[in-house]
């Protein structure tokens, strides 16, 4: 089975927060709970003296060896064969242990239900062959969805193109 994931291309994110809005529209999460969150870093002066501002959209990473699964006392969190990590809200006791151990702060507490909640990678959409809502709407194509092989191929192809262009400049072929 493939292992799905989302890749964030920092160089393309413009911080429009369409991912947040699309997630809210699709998953109808309550106020204050964002399964995907766009974090702004800066504006600050980078090492080269240029003013930079970076945007990073963070959702659940659906880890290969997820600490939340290991730590959950109610055994409510599980990993599906396609790599999507889900919280079974029927079993969840809302103890917030998963939040303690998650390196990305992905699980959030929903006070209305007294349960933990987090990104489900839009598994219903993925099962229908669609992209997760945040990826589908990302117009600068900063979010990329795919299996781990697809994602690494994507990055490699981009790197290859970059190298090719750089060599043009260096050798003066242009």
């Amino acid at each position, binding site marked *: 089975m493939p292992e799905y994931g989302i890749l964030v291309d920092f*160089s*393309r994110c*413009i*911080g*429009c*927060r*369409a991912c*947040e*809005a*699309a997630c*809210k*529209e*699709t998953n109808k999460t309550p*106020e204050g709970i964002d399964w995907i969150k766009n974090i702004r870093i800066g*504006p600050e*002066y980078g090492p080269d003296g240029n*003013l*930079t*501002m970076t945007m990073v959209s963070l959702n659940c990473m659906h880890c290969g060896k997820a600490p939340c699964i290991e730590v959950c006392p109610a055994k409510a969190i599980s990993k599906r064969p396609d790599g999507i990590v889900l919280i079974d809200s029927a079993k969840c006791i809302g103890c917030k242990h998963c939040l303690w151990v998650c390196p990305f702060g992905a699980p959030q507490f929903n006070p209305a239900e007294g349960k933990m909640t987090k990104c489900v990678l839009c598994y219903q959409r993925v099962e229908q062959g669609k992209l997760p809502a945040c990826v*589908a*709407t*990302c*117009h*600068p*194509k900063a979010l990329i969805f795919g299996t781990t092989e697809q994602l690494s191929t994507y990055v490699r192809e*981009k790197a290859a*193109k970059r190298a090719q*262009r750089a060599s043009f400049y260096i050798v003066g072929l242009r």
Partner: protein
Amino acid sequence: MATIQTHCPFCSIACGLSISLDLFGRPKQVEPNYNFTHNRGALCPRGLLSLEWMRHQERLKKPLIREKNGFREASWSEALQKIASVFRSLIENYGPTSIAFYASSRLSNETLYLFKKLGYEVIKTPHIDFNDRLGVASARAAYSLSLGSSEPPNPLTDLLATNLVLIIGADPCSCHPVLMRYVFDARERGAKIVTIDPRKTQTARMADLHIQIKPGTDVAFLNGALNQLIISGLIDRDFIVARTKGFDSVQEAVSKYTPARVAEITGVKEEQLRAFARLYAQSPTAMVIHSRGLEQHQKGVSAVLACINLALATGKVGKRGCGFLPLMGHVSGVTSYPNPSSYGLKEGFTVYEMIEAAYRREIRGMYILASNPVVSLPETGFVVDALQKLDLLVVQDVFLTETAKLAHVILPGSTLYESEGTINAVDGRRVKLKRAFNTPKDAKEDWKIICQLAKILGANQGFEYGSAEEVLDELSSHSKKTIMRRDIDEQGLAVVGDPLVSDKIEKKRLYGDSFAHHDGLAAFYMVEYAEPAELTSTEYPLLLITFKTPYHFLTSSETGRIDFFKQKCPKPYLEIHPATAEKLGISQGDRVVVRSKAGKVEAVAEVTDTIRDDCVAMPMHWFKEGWVNLVVPKHFDPISKIPNYKAIPVCVERK
């Protein structure tokens, strides 16, 4: 469960989207449309959350009539009869020119056409204007002067084939987010990105070269760049001789713009000017994107002309990957024709002239359609005074906006998801809007209200339409080149070019062989830098720029009511450079007062390195605490009559 394919009603990219309906025909969700070439399945948050605007509980549901103590609900016939009787008595006593019409151009072609027909044909007033006066007026005037037509010349896909994207006074990251995918793709294909902007916007941060220019000095910079190109012999002499006229006068005029003088005027280092000129000349192709930052000045038309001169002198026009992309703020209907002369009337007032005439009591009745001039026009205090002097102010809108609060009669209109019609996107393509769901309660479609009002005002015929398509056919007959209904295919991917010129699907690139002037030549216009009417002084030492945030839209009458955007951008803020802030004793989060000759407004200080130290910047949107146009004085471009919203001398104090 049905889905309706229509288009986003916000910015001019006009992204395709589909609205899914539940079994009762109520809208459920917005999803991006994968078939529309502009967005290809992507949407920004404004489009995604547009249903929250349409279904908002504050929507106007019934006609309202003002009484001494507030508004009362009224029936349609009562409201329309009241409007008709006052308009009739005004026409009788003061003539038809005592009535003025003003509308948003963010309405369908059909609605705008009927609005004009009502004004020109039934009321017989020449005073009709649209809010694109505040937006694209400068660009339209400059393109008509120089290239012969105000039509956007290039398709969006030309961005992918270019070697240089020059973005002047525009921040697509905030205003046209979906455009950024073209810019990013171009960059990945090896294109360089250059931005000219006083603020280091998100767009500027990702650019290869950012020129942080002093506001209002673009003419000097662009002339200086052209001078550099001429001196280094990097201009395209063959193109200039074969395709243009008037170059000699421009050559003479720009020779005065030496790097030293340009640096003095614009605050840009000489090396940067040279680097820009070199980069521009060495790129075989270049696309120019420009927007309000270049245009909303007292020399707005000149600035656009300077920009066109640069492209013409290097022959970077009308080829693949070469040309212009003037950005409209929002999707827009045709406003340029039919014009008053086709109804035998002379040219009427522009919007601010209407307001001034209302202040003088020359204009006594006004009909404002889906626009919010109290927030969007300069010198709010004056605009409010003028509108309060009117005998009758009719406002047709979907929310109780600041302008509607002054109205005598309010008519509840429709949004673009609730009416049929066609509308034009950024590159001139016309897209078809479909009715996804019904207006709330007693609200009606805008064009139907206009027809009804016309009949009550005594128009015997000419306002009997079965559908919006019949209106479109009639509108088409006013253009020399007709457009047929069939040119819009089922997907709504529609037509092209001058909004009413037909051509299937792909937008055609213009000016490949000849320009739109009679002789087929493009005209160089000599433009000179001139100091604005108001300069910074010891009393008002800083220059204020207005800008659009990524979260709100124009006067934020829609986005200001959506929680998502309200949380992201709740208050007016003032961007200020740390050095300036320190001098004034202001720190992050302080409440500050911005003062100009026109008035004052309060804001929260946002200390940031992204702005020049001689400037401050404030969002243009409406906020409960106040909005920037309270301090914007009324100065206009002499040709396009666009207000100067950028470069306003102000002083800032801690509160």
